[in-house]
């Protein structure tokens, strides 16, 4: 059992934190959202320079073959800095889907460009009617003129507007909830029949609704191998869960730190508000929640790296459940401790609640994972 970062992880985390401190201070982040930009291109270039975009890519394809453990400190840093970079969408989600679901040719075509940061891809899997069901796919794929055409709608595609390619799940056979009968496809954002309605999520990050109308699509691998597809989807979702758990725990840490600073500096009725026992106790409760979130972010990373193992699923469910709940507690407490200033958009603390809320809704919310955990255990 080991809870420390190794040297590479620690060094990378430090470089990343420096980059983000430099480019993603809260005021810079505010200017960025105000500018209408979906992300900061220089930061993205910096991430590539640090090798972060290459981290999850296999070594044979120009990457470092890192796993969720290696990504943990980076994702925490993204959470702390309220990053809007398409890292989760491209490097983590689309990258994992390609790694697990694509044949060699497809991997060779895309992953080196994703490793260098030049290609941004997005993971387009969730559909509105599925809500939190992990394998609900209504999008249909049909063979036509020697190729494949997709029809369907994918909701809340993270970083959709930045993506050159979409990795899309679509159904070849069966009903929407069937575990099998799906395949993964690559869709070029520029092709006919591919329409993206871009919008911002409530945490300011960019997303889009992908509407596919007889859109040309290329299977990542043999589309009949629906077991592989299922494992690729599950592995991608597992990587996503680990990433957002890390992100939420980082966001909670930042909200907590802001609140503690505030308690130590803000005066009211002639004394530091941090002298109020009721606020002090709230701070202690927040610390307990924070420590739980940190622990379960680690558990999620370990479980995602081992997602093929039989017993990794419970830890993923537990983590998604527990991190979201505990991180949210921290954010709510941090806002309350701040009072009025905590309710404003020009102060960072409220943004952490917004971020945690969005991430809580990705890959299944607390209720969904409680039900799945119960199914796994009871």
């Amino acid at each position, binding site marked *: 059992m080991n809870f420390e970062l190794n040297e590479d992880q620690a060094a990378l985390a430090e470089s990343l934190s420096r980059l983000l401190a430099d480019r993603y201070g809260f005021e810079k982040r505010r200017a960025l959202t105000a500018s209408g930009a979906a992300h900061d291109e220089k930061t993205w270039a910096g991430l590539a320079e640090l090798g972060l975009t290459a981290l999850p890519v296999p070594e044979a394809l120009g990457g470092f073959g890192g796993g969720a453990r290696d990504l943990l400190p980076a994702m925490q840093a993204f959470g702390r800095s309220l990053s809007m970079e398409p890292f989760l969408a491209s490097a983590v989600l689309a990258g994992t889907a390609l790694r697990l679901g694509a044949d060699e040719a497809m991997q060779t075509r895309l992953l080196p460009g994703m490793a260098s940061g030049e290609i941004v891809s997005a993971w387009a899997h*969730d559909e*509105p*009617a*599925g*809500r*939190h*069901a992990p394998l*609900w796919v209504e999008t249909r794929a049909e063979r036509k003129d020697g190729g494949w055409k997709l029809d369907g709608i994918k*909701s*809340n595609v993270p970083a959709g507007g930045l993506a050159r390619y979409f990795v899309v799940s679509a159904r070849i056979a069966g009903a*929407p*909830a069937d575990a099998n009968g799906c395949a993964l496809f690559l869709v070029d954002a520029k092709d006919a029949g591919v329409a993206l309605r871009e*919008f*911002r*999520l*409530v945490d*300011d990050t960019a*997303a889009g609704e992908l509407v596919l109308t007889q859109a040309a699509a290329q299977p990542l691998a043999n589309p009949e191998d629906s077991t592989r597809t299922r494992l690729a989807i599950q592995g991608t979702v597992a990587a996503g869960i680990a990433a957002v758990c890390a992100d939420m725990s980082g966001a909670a840490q930042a909200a907590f730190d802001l609140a503690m600073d505030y308690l130590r500096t*803000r*005066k*009211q*009725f002639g004394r530091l508000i941090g002298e*109020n026992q*009721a*606020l002090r106790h709230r701070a202690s409760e927040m610390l307990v929640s924070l420590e739980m979130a940190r622990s379960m972010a680690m558990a999620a990373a370990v479980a995602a790296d081992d997602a093929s193992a039989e017993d990794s699923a419970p830890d993923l469910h537990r983590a998604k459940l527990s991190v979201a709940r505990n991180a949210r507690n921290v954010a*709510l407490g941090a*806002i*309350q401790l701040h*009072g*009025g200033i*905590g*309710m*404003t*958009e*020009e102060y960072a603390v*409220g*943004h952490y*609640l*917004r971020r945690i*809320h*969005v991430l809580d*809704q*990705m890959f299944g*919310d607390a*209720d969904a994972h*409680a039900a799945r955990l119960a199914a796994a255990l009871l």
Partner: protein
Amino acid sequence: MDLDLTPEQRAFRDEVRTFIREKLPSEIRERLRAGHPPRKQDTVAWQRILNERGWAAPHWPKRYGGADLGPMERLILLDEAYRAPAPLPQAFNVGMLGPVLMKFGTPAQCDHFLPRLANLDIWFCQGFSEPGSGSDLASLRTAARREGDHYIVNGQKIWTTTAHLADWVFALVRTDTEARKQEGISFLLIDLRTPGITIRPIHSIDGEHHLNEVFFDEVRVPVGNLVGQENKGWDCAKFLLSNERTGIANVGLCRERLDYARELAGRYTQAGKPLLDDPKLRADIAMLEAETRALEITNWRFLLTDSEQKRLPAFASVLKLKGTELQQEINALLARIVGPGGLERRSADEVTHGPIAPRYFLSRAASIYGGTTEVQKDILAKAIVG
């Protein structure tokens, strides 16, 4: 002991309900139902419709254009407004400034302002909070010095709700800097068009513009705009803050949002099944509904029963605490119901499926504004522990 309305009250409720159904523009109703805040023109239009009917200022005496209603009737008006949902009476005009003028104002001030307040010809906002004052209101530093027939005001207010929509502000200013905290404060009415006033928006975490900073730089205010005596403004403020507890529990709001939760849970599906069939969600809605009923009866009990008010004069804090908790939990429930479907940030003009998640974020203000949860608990503890 009974929980029934009297026949008269029932008739009044039906009358109000019918009135709202007939007069409230459906576009306004739908916007509010979807979770949007009312626009200024919605509030103004509705306030004037109410004023025509004589219901614009439910608790004011009739001679000032009020309806002179008893507590139960006031509650009925409020509940029916929430139920519709309709815009609420503009609180600063009707709930706050009106009663202060009637108690502390000159006849001339009353005659001039009250009809305009009731009809929303003038939109007032409240200038109490300042940077650094927070829950410690009396530590305010905005100063007014007398020069002939004017006060010259310098300073800054913050968290000024709707200042950007308002025509006037009623403000607490320090007129004696030597006196102790609560002394030396005066209550001034200030026309926001006066030179030297700058309003800067503060966006809230729902992304919307509700709040402002208001800066005063050598702003000249006629001494006739002083309410009550100079240096006695704290009396006005105390009276204002203790006044009109009809709406503090926000029961009608909880009910309306719970109704909407049921509506949305019926509309949403998860993996092909109606969300409203989910046993855990059902239990959670039921729990909140039951607690809302508990708050409703507690609200009636305290508002209508002298002996209860005497037993616990600090009862408003009970209502505020529980009302806050329920509002926040119900808003969290709504955000959970819309789930991933509520993550998209939309424009405030959109009518269907309003900003449910942003409104959940904004609901966190309920435990901060109007006396934080911590302040309410301090007040109650003083009453019960000593």
